[in-house]
Structure formats: C-alpha cells, structure tokens
C-alpha cells in the first residue's frame, strides 16, 4: 500500500506536471504572502514586509527543485533531458551519426534476419489452441537414418495409429497426418498441382483450429473409407487460386481424378502442423485409397507414413504419456497387430526393445528444423561476430570523438555535474545511436529476408513456406541486442571520463593530447577487430570450399548426361503383369528418342529420396549381429550400370538376357563385397533375401564400383542390385527411368515428356529432371549457408576496413604536428610511412594469429558441415589472412598519403 501511494504520487507528478507546478507556485506564494501579512500585522510597512518574507523564505526556485526531487519527477525529467541533449549532439555531427548508425544497422539487421528464421524454424509455437499441451509421438526425422528405432514406430501405420487412438489413457485426442505430396487438382476442367496433406478427421479439432469460412472436418466426416470426398483449403491457396472468392465453399473439384467438394477455408495464420511444409489443401485420411488408387494404407500394418500429435489430458505429463503410449504400442505390435505384420518386422520386434519417442510438441514437427538447425546456429554465430565488429567500430568512433569532447565534459564537470550523470548522458547517446541503428537494421532485415528466402529457394518450395513475420520474440531480441551493443561500445569510452581532471583539461586549451589510455585501448580494439575479421572470413572460406568440394565430388558416375523421369504406373491404373509390360514398352520408346544414347530403369532411382533395405543371408549363414544382415538394395533394369556409367570391377552386369530367362542374379557394390567377403571373390556366392514374404535367392554375378546414389556426403552403403522383376521386392509400381543423353540432358526434357505421353497420355509422370539438378537439390542448405557466410565475410571485411581507416586517420591527425616537425627536420618519407603503419602491422600480426587460432578452435562446432578438407585448411586460412591484410593496406593508404604530404609550415602554424 505504501509502495502504491508512492507510485501514485509519482505518476501524478509526472503525468500532471503542469498542475503540480501551478499548485506548488500557489502554495509557496500563499506562504510568503501569509508571512508578509503577519509582519504587516506586527507593524512592518507592507513593502518592507514583502521583502523580508521573501528573504526569510530563502531560494524559492531551490525549494521547488527539492520538492520535485522529493516526488521523483527529476529522474524522468533528466532522462528526457539527456535524450534531447543526446539527439541534439548527434544531429550536430551528422557524419559520425551516419557512419555509426549505418554500421550498427548492418550488424543488427543481419542478426535480426537470421534470428527471424531461427524463430520461425526452431522456436515459435504453432499458432493453435494451447500448443503447450501437444506432444509428438514417434520421430519422423529418424526414418531415413536406417536401423534406428523400432520398426514402424518412427512414423506410424494407420492400424497402429488406430490402436494408439483407441487405447491410450493420456490424450484428450490424437491426430495423424501424412504428406500427400503434389496432387493433381482439376478446377473447371484444367489440371494443375497442389500440395496436399492427408489428415484424420479429428485433425482440426485436436489442434483447435476453426474454419475461416465454411467448416473443417468433424468426427462425423470420414467414419468409413471413401465415404466423405471433402477438402479444406488453406488461406494462401484460397487467395492464390480462387482470389478469395467466398463462393468456393461447395465447389466441386477433382483430386487425382476423383470428385471432391470444398467445404472450408483454414484461417490465414494456420500453415499446418509441419513447420516449413505449407499444404494447399487437407483431405480426410479415409479418402487415401481414392487418392492413391492401387494402394490402400488404411488396413496395411506394413506401410508406415503417419505423423502423430496428441493433445494431453489436463495434468498429464509428457513422461506419463510416453509410458502409456509405449505400453499401448507394445501390446499392439506384439499381440493385436502381430499376425498381420511382415515377417521382417516381426523378426525385428522380437530382437528389439520397443521405444516410441514422445516429446513436447508445441512447436509442431519440422523437416526444416532438422536440416537447418545447425547451419542456422552457425550463421547466428557469424552474424554475432559481425555485430561485434560493428560495435568495435562504433566504440572506436566514440573514442575518437570523446577526445574531441574532453573540453565539453571537463566544463560540465566543473559546473557541478556528477561523474555518474556524465556517464549516464553518454550512455543515453550510445543507446540512441543503437536504437536508430536497430530501427534501420530491422528495415534491412526485412529486405534481407526476401533475399535469404530466394537464396534458399533453389530446390523445393519449402523455405518460402515459413511464416517469417515479426513477433514479440524478434522485436525483443532486436531490442536486446541494441541495448547490449550500446553498452558494449558505449561504456568503455564513457567510463574514461570518470578520471578526467577538469582543471588540467581546461588548461590544455583546444589542443587535446593523445592520452595513454586511448592509445592502448584503441590498439586492443584494432587487434580484436582484425582477429574477428579473420575468424569470420576463415569460417566462410571453409564453408565455401566445402560446398565446392561437394559440388565437384566424384559420385562414381557422370551426372552431367543423365536425365531422370519418375512414372507412377500403379497410380495410372496398371496392375500385375501390365506394369512389367508397360515398363518394357516405355524403355523401348525412350531408347528410340533422338539424342538418347541408352535408357534403363530402377526402383529407387538416383537422389530421389526413395531408399530401401532388406535383411539378407550370405550362402545361408546368418551373422551374429542382426544389424550386419541389413543391406541397402535396389531393383534395376537391364544394362543399368553401363547406362549410368558405373564401371563393373569384377564379373558382369545384369543384362537383357538375364531378364529374358528370369535369371536370379545380383550385382553388389564394392563396399558390400568388402564387408561380407573381404579379400575373397564374391562371384558365384548366393544372397537370400531372408525375411520377405517370398524368400528368394540370387547369385552374385558382378561387383560394381561404389557410387553415391542418394547423398554426396554420406559414406557409401553396402548395396545389392537385383533385377527389377523380382517377386521378392514389394512392387511399388513407380519406376525411375534413367536416360543417358548424347549431349545436354536438359535438351531432351520435352521429347522425353512427349514420348511418355505418346505411350499413354494418362500416365502419372511425377518428375523429369536432370541428375545434376537432383544432386544440387540435396545441397541446398549447404549452398545457402556458404553463400550467406561469404556475404557476411564480405560485410565483416568492409567493416574492418572502415574501422581501421578510422583508427589510422585519427592517429595521423593527432600526430600532424609531430609529423610536421619531423619533416621540417628532414626525416625521410619512407621513415614516416613506417612510423605510421608500424603499429598497424603489429596489430595485424597479433589479430591474425588470434583469429586463426580461434577459427581452428571453433571449427569443431561445425565440423559436420565441412567436406573434403581439414579444419586447419591452409587455403582458407591463408586467404582469410590475406584478405584482412589487404583490407588493412587499403585502409592505410589514405592516412599514410596524408601523413607524408603534411606541410610542415601549416602543421606548425596550426598550433
């Protein structure tokens, strides 16, 4: 209560300033007049009484000031005063202000831009109801990491989801969703593609998302398979495709050639539960068989593609949820669903502990998060260094300026300003500069983000699907770095005035001597700046060189002349033997296209993202460790290796004759041969695919050179290649055709498309792309990071150059008189040049060594991003040092020239 009364009186005093002032006036006037009255009453003449009353009272203004002080008005008042004064001083030196603000804007802008992306990808909660109650079940990030987790529990099959949904005790509701990829949508006849997502009917309800227009799915929709052909479209798609037309509700469209009705539009803020995947439309899970004819995942225990998010019941913890979900999954896999599982899954369950990941899910799921977290943190580290260099620059500027302001400050100290007050005033100035820089920086960040997104946009469309808005976190972050920057660059120069002796300074007159502190501190700043510059540039160099190595890496075949086309025969309505016949026909037609040297096909393709592996036995023997029995595999068409250009190092490849007589033959890669046979000859040995529904045995007829078929960076896996027609592989019904062009594969794009269409115009062609592009797509994140780090490296170089120029120019200016005397006495010009750059050389040496040391130490933080070079890569190290040295030289040229051109007469007269 006491505190409250104080706050109230302070607020009243501050907000009703005028009223308080006039009341104070009236009160004091009353006092003096009443006193005078009394004096008159005791016989003093009126005039004399007034005079005496005023004298007895003492200083009216001082009393008022003390009254204001008592109310805490002055504190606020003086801050405004400082601010006004600060802004006025800044306006008086526009050159300094412009350089300082721009420098900081670059630093702060870079930080705000990177942080905005980090916020969107890594930090922000989904814009749904109570995101903190959500948990993710499973871990889709693990799916391609081969052999981790229990089978089918990183992503779920629909039957397993149903078990979890119906038998758990911890979720108030639990949703499942799956990527539908590009679906063909026909609105008014024409066909186009849109990104779709299959979701359970409780999807919107669980997330707490209500339709902007129409309705979302309800639990009434999608009770039985195929029963509700409805869809909800995203706000973005509604705007883009339907121009925000409200009559879209009830509109009939065809999805993958099946009739659907649009029932609702999602609100603008909702971009789905997978950050970075921004679907255009949502379709009930129960419509899956209609959208993917020929594949029914709803009853298949062996097809797992669902992501699961549950909403916790009140007061249930994540740990409790984990225990419960694991118990439910264990029961389902070992009892309820066990009979329907494939034998390899069943075998794996027997040998492994069931462990389903259950984690807090407020931020949703994200592929981008996994892919970009490390690069983003690295970039944030780099821009933090950029900001630091910017701060050092501004500190240097302030330091130089503070020399010029010694007179002013000394005067203010003699007039009675306390040292604390002076420091506060100077800090207010720094903070104003920082916030001006921050405001400009946010503008730069806004502009820079567009560039950043377009950079990251080379491959797929994911990066443009983030919502990169300003929110309180970005603003708070920016304000935070503004303040800390202001303290970093403002405090040291300000504190130097604490020890100022006004008498001495004022006696100096305008001369201003170079003080030792400025000299030493300034030199430390210069070294620090050089070290930071080298650190950032070397990091950038390592990343750029790694990217180059990745791009130029030998994949084991020539990607330059390959074109890949993926055709989904199952979706096009083909079944059984018709698939084989159509494949053969396509191979023949494509081979006949002019400009095609040869053509083959395979199940997984190259850099397609499709991968498969199986449990095998060599010559009937199992190894002791089940992991050792797993091999990656692929089914390939005739002459696969010669078409792609992979050398066969031993034996022969799989040919058309093998297909003609349905030979059970296989080719293995070198890693496979080494792993299972060591120095022995693998030809003639038998591989049995052990746990499939139809176990089959293959005879090894050849060993192929190791190739990077899905990742440039990862080590080559052991792999076996079997003929495409083998019954032992699940027939996916979608094949990749590898076309070896005579010349540039891009030139064949249209003729290949036409050739396929000529066979059957309704064939679902997913993708036709040059192999080089597919490879490049997998390097997108590396590319973005390398390009950005190179950009930040350039920025740092520029800042270092500007900073060094400032320091050198200041040094020469403050020594003009000395230089003049030296010239007058006949000092040689070379000696003068050396005198000016001597210190800079020392600082360059110290900074360079520290910077390289720090860079080598820091590389272990991003070792995973390097490729084909050591952390102490001499080329990156050398070029970073050279670049900074060149910047130093460039920065020194003008000041040095000014120094040797000093006219002794002018310099001496200047005194």
């Amino acid at each position, binding site marked *: 209560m006491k505190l409250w009364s104080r706050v109230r009186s302070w607020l009243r005093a501050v907000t009703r300033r005028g009223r308080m002032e006039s009341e104070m006036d009236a009160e004091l006037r009353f006092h003096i007049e009443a006193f005078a009255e009394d004096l008159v009453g005791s016989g003093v003449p009126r005039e004399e009484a007034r005079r005496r009353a005023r004298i007895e009272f003492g200083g009216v203004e001082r009393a008022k000031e003390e009254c204001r002080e008592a109310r*805490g008005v002055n504190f606020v008042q003086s801050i405004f005063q400082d601010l006004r004064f600060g802004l006025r001083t800044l306006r008086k030196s526009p050159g300094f202000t412009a350089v300082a603000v721009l420098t900081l804007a670059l630093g702060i802008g870079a930080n705000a831009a990177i942080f905005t992306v980090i916020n969107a990808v890594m930090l922000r909660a989904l814009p749904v109801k109570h995101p903190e109650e959500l948990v993710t079940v499973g871990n889709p990030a693990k799916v391609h990491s081969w052999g981790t987790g229990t089978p089918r529990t990183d992503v779920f099959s629909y039957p397993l989801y149903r078990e979890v949904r119906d038998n758990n005790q911890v979720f108030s509701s639990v949703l499942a969703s799956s990527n539908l990829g590009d679906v063909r949508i026909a609105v008014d006849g024409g066909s186009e593609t849109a990104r779709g997502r299959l979701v359970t009917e409780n999807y919107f309800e669980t997330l707490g998302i209500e339709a902007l227009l129409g309705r979302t799915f309800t639990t009434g929709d999608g009770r039985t398979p195929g029963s509700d052909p409805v869809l909800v479209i995203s706000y973005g798609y509604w705007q883009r495709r339907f121009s925000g037309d409200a009559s879209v509700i009830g509109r009939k469209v065809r999805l993958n050639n099946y009739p659907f009705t649009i029932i609702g539009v999602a609100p603008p803020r909702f971009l789905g539960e997978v950050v970075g995947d921004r679907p255009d439309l949502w379709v009930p899970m129960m419509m899956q068989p209609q959208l993917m004819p020929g594949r029914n995942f709803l009853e298949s225990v062996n097809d797992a593609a669902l992501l699961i998010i549950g909403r916790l019941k009140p007061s249930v913890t994540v740990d409790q949820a984990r225990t419960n979900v694991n118990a439910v999954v264990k029961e389902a896999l070992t009892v309820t669903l066990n009979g329907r599982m494939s034998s390899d899954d069943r075998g794996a369950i027997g040998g492994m502990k069931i462990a389903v990941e259950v984690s807090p899910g407020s931020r949703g799921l994200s592929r981008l998060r996994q892919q970009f977290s490390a690069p983003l943190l690295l970039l944030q580290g780099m821009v933090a260094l950029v900001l630091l260099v910017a701060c050092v620059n501004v500190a240097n500027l302030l330091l130089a300026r503070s020399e010029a302001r010694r007179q002013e400050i000394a005067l203010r100290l003699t007039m009675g300003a306390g040292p604390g007050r002076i420091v506060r005033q100077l800090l207010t100035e720094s903070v104003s500069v920082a916030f001006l820089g921050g405001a400009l920086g946010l503008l730069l960040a806004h502009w820079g983000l567009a560039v950043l997104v377009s950079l990251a946009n080379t491959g797929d469309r994911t990066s443009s699907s983030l919502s990169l808005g300003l929110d309180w976190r970005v603003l708070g972050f920016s304000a935070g770095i503004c303040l800390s920057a202001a303290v970093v660059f403002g405090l040291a120069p300000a504190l130097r005035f604490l020890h100022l002796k006004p008498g001495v300074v004022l006696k100096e007159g305008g001369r201003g001597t170079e003080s030792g502190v400025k000299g030493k501190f300034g030199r430390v700043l210069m070294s620090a700046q050089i070290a930071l510059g080298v650190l950032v540039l070397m990091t950038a160099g390592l990343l750029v060189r790694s990217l180059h190595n990745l791009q130029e890496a030998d994949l084991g075949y020539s990607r330059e002349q390959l074109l890949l086309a993926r055709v989904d025969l199952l979706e096009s309505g083909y079944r059984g033997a018709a698939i084989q016949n159509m494949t053969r026909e396509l191979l023949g037609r494509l081979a006949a296209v002019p400009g095609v040297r040869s053509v083959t096909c395979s199940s997984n393709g190259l850099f397609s993202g499709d991968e498969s592996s199986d449990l095998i036995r060599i010559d009937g023997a199992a190894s002791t460790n089940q992991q050792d029995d797993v091999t990656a595999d692929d089914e390939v068409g005739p002459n696969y290796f010669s078409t792609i250009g992979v050398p066969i190092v031993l034996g022969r490849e799989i040919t058309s004759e093998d297909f003609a007589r349905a030979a059970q033959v296989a080719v293995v890669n070198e890693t496979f041969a080494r792993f299972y046979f060591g120095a022995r000859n693998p030809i003639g040995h038998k591989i049995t695919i052990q746990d499939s529904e139809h176990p089959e045995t293959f005879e090894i007829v050849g060993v192929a050179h190791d190739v990077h078929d899905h990742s440039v960076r990862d080590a080559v896996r052991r792999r076996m290649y079997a003929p495409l027609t083998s019954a032992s592989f699940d027939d996916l019904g979608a094949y990749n055709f590898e076309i070896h062009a005579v010349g540039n594969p891009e030139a064949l794009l249209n003729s290949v498309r036409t050739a396929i269409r000529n066979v059957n115009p309704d064939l679902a062609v997913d993708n036709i792309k040059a192999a080089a592009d597919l490879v490049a797509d997998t390097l997108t994140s590396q590319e973005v990071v390398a390009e950005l780090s190179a950009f930040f490296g350039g920025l740092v170089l520029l800042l270092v150059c500007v900073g060094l120029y400032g320091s050198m120019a200041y040094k020469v200016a403050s020594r003009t008189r000395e230089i003049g005397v030296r010239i007058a006495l006949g000092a040689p010009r070379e000696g003068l040049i050396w005198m000016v750059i001597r210190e800079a050389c020392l600082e360059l040496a110290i900074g360079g060594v520290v910077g390289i040391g720090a860079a080598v130490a820091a590389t272990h933080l991003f070792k995973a991003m390097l490729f084909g070079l050591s952390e102490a890569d001499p080329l990156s190290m050398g070029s970073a040092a050279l670049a900074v040295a060149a910047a130093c030289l460039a920065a020194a040229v003008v000041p040095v020239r000014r120094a040797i051109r000093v006219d002794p007469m002018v310099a001496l007269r200047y005194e």
Partner: protein
Amino acid sequence: MDKQMELLQGTLDMLILKAVSLGPLHGYGVLLRIQQISKDRLEIQQGSLYPALYRLEHQGWITSEWGESENKRKAKYYRLTAAGKRKLQTEAEKWNRMADVIAGILRSTPEEV
C-alpha cells in the same frame, strides 16, 4: 527570548508529523505551530519545509487537499494519515529512547564508569 537552536538533522519530518497530528494545517501553519509549541526556540529554514512536506506526502504519511484559510484564501492543507500516525508513534518512541540513552551517558560521573 531564548537564543534559537538549529534543528537536529532528520528531526524536521518528525516535528511536521507531530504538528499536523494536532489538526490539519497549511504549510505556513505548520511553521507557526512548530514555532509556537517550541516557544520560538527552534530555527526552521522556511525553504526546507516544503520539500519535507512533499517527501512526507510522497511516502504516504500525510495527505493534502485545498481548502480556505482563516483569511478566506485558498491554501493547501495537510493532514496525518493512519500510516503517518503509526510512523509518528514509532519515531517518537525511537527519539525518546535515544534521548534517554544520550542523557544517561551525559549524566554519567567518573564513579559510575
């Protein structure tokens, strides 16, 4: 008239609280009341009275409102709050204890030490 004594540091606040505890007063009235009770033996800097009043009001010991003075003029009257009353009590006790201790020390004779 006795020679005026200078006010001990920190006692003005207590005297003001005491003065207004006897009834609402305007600033000038506080001055007069203190002089009257002290029989003019205390010298009070008039200028320092108002900052003290403002401080006490800021701390919530007293409140003020505008009223009419004896000679029909507008004046600001100060009144003790409940918190101020408690404050005055504790301050007075503290002061008395302190005065006793000091007086005891000053009264002491060589035999007592």
